[in-house]
């Protein structure tokens, strides 16, 4: 298996604050990589940097399928196949559900006519289970549906690597299970996934590999089962006392 994404020595600071320090990791084709870490450990910043929305890294290099994206703008990064979701449920509130997907689809989808592109958009909605809602304004659907819509719009961009930022935050237990199934399904469809999540059960069920960030640095890496037992991880999450008990 080749690396679909390779991150080499990236850093990002905001004034005195170093949000990401010399971080390196890689993602193999068809792999699901989980990222955990306490609040403020730089997880979301990492996604911002990878997609350059709104900013890239201060230093370091990012390669997608072997090709460096350093000189590229956010739009070209999307075209290379690196697509993210956001932590809070985000949408184009005044567009309808299907228009949210349509606006995310690349130019090539519109070459074979209006009907074909709509059909294609409906397939993405169907894939996440939102086809019935297609004509409602995006602002009117539920939080869970909005999270799924965000994934549908990401899929519409034809990602090679999908970056999911807390896809299950705020969801009920059955909804979390459904989300796990969805992520697995996406991965089975040939898309590599990086998922940031606080819900450990989700991370354990979907990830092939797990890394833990703390203060912008890589704290631990390995299989989910190993990593969550790592005392350094427990210390980072629960404080020194818990680790030594």
């Amino acid at each position: 298996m080749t690396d679909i994404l390779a991150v080499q020595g990236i850093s990002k600071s905001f004034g005195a604050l170093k949000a990401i320090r010399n971080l390196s990791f890689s993602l193999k084709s068809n792999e699901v990589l989980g990222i955990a870490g306490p609040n403020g450990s730089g997880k979301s910043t990492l996604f911002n940097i990878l997609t350059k929305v709104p900013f890239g890294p201060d230093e370091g290099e990012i390669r997608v399928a072997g090709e460096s994206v350093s000189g590229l703008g956010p739009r070209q990064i999307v075209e290379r196949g690196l697509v993210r979701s956001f932590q809070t449920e985000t949408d184009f509130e005044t567009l309808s559900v299907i228009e949210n997907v349509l606006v995310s689809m690349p130019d090539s989808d519109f070459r074979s006519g209006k009907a074909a592109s709509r059909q294609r958009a409906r397939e993405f909605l169907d894939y996440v289970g939102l086809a019935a809602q297609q004509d409602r304004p995006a602002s009117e659907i539920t939080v869970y549906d909005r999270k799924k819509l965000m994934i549908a719009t990401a899929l519409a961009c034809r990602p090679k690597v999908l970056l999911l930022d807390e896809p299950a935050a705020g969801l009920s237990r059955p909804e979390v299970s459904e989300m796990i199934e969805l992520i697995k399904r996406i991965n089975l469809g040939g898309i590599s996934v990086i998922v940031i999540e606080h819900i450990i059960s989700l991370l354990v069920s979907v990830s092939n590999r797990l890394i833990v960030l703390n203060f912008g640095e890589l704290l631990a890496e390995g299989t989910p089962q190993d990593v969550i037992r790592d005392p350094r991880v427990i210390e980072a999450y629960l404080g020194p006392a818990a680790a030594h008990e």
Partner: protein
Amino acid sequence: METKLRTAAIVAFFAILVALPLVNGDSYVRHISIIAIMYAVLVSSWNISLGYGGVFNFAHMAFFAVGAYATGILTKTFGFSPWFGMPIGIAASVAASILVCLPVLRLKGIYVILVTFAFGQLCLQIVLNQRELTGGNFGLVQIPPLEIGTFSFRDHQNIGYYYLALAILGLTVAVVSWFARSRFGWRVVALRDNEPYAVSRGVPLSRTRLLTFALSAVFPGAIGAVYAQYVRSASPDMFGFSFLTLALSMLLLGGTGTVWGPIAGAFVFTILSEVMAPLGPGRYLVTAVLIVLILRFFPKGLAGIPQFVAQLMRGSRTGQLYPTESA
């Protein structure tokens, strides 16, 4: 059902406007109608950048004035045929829009207002400085009118200008309606609703913004040219604060981000402002109060009123027939 009603309303609206000159030949009504139609074009095209695009573009009326001056200067002083007026107006206006859009790409919020407003002021300075060409603060006069053979567009109470303006309005409505449902339109709205999200879905920010400005500037350019030929004059007051506020009131009164709101706003406000003419300065007091009240109680403007009424009716109906269900 709803779309049929809509189509019927659109057809009725234009049918009335097309038929109006046949039933009313009064030159005062004609002038006010022409001006209302021109304002409707200006305001609904402004809606593309300010309403749909969410970009606080305060240069739109300057585009109009630039179009009018360009047409006036080239056809009067440099002898271009008046029939080149509209292409000249459009070219000048679009060029101005691209010029002002470039710095806007880097800016947000209040800075966009300031830069676009400053652009209008800069144009005004140039007009005042270039007295020989523009007539300075007195304005440009005797701009050649449109004529076909012996028929002047001014004949029969300006009937030529009336139908020309109406045709441009028809085109504007068609383009804005197309725009609102096109992929380009979705992209513009997506950028307004959530810029980072839109960028992360591959929407090209700079290109979309530039195209938005250019598209919205086509109409003030065209109408600026026809305006200059109709009133045969261009004045620096067209860059002024009162004029800008007047148009902005129409847009906000009508409701941004809808096809019909701004057009309704333009018609209602033109007539209102005319009716209030005898009030003198008092007119501005009424207008000011009206603007604030609308912003306060009808933030969606006239366009929000049908929705408001519908909600009221639906609300009362559900109240009676269907007990509220928990969502």
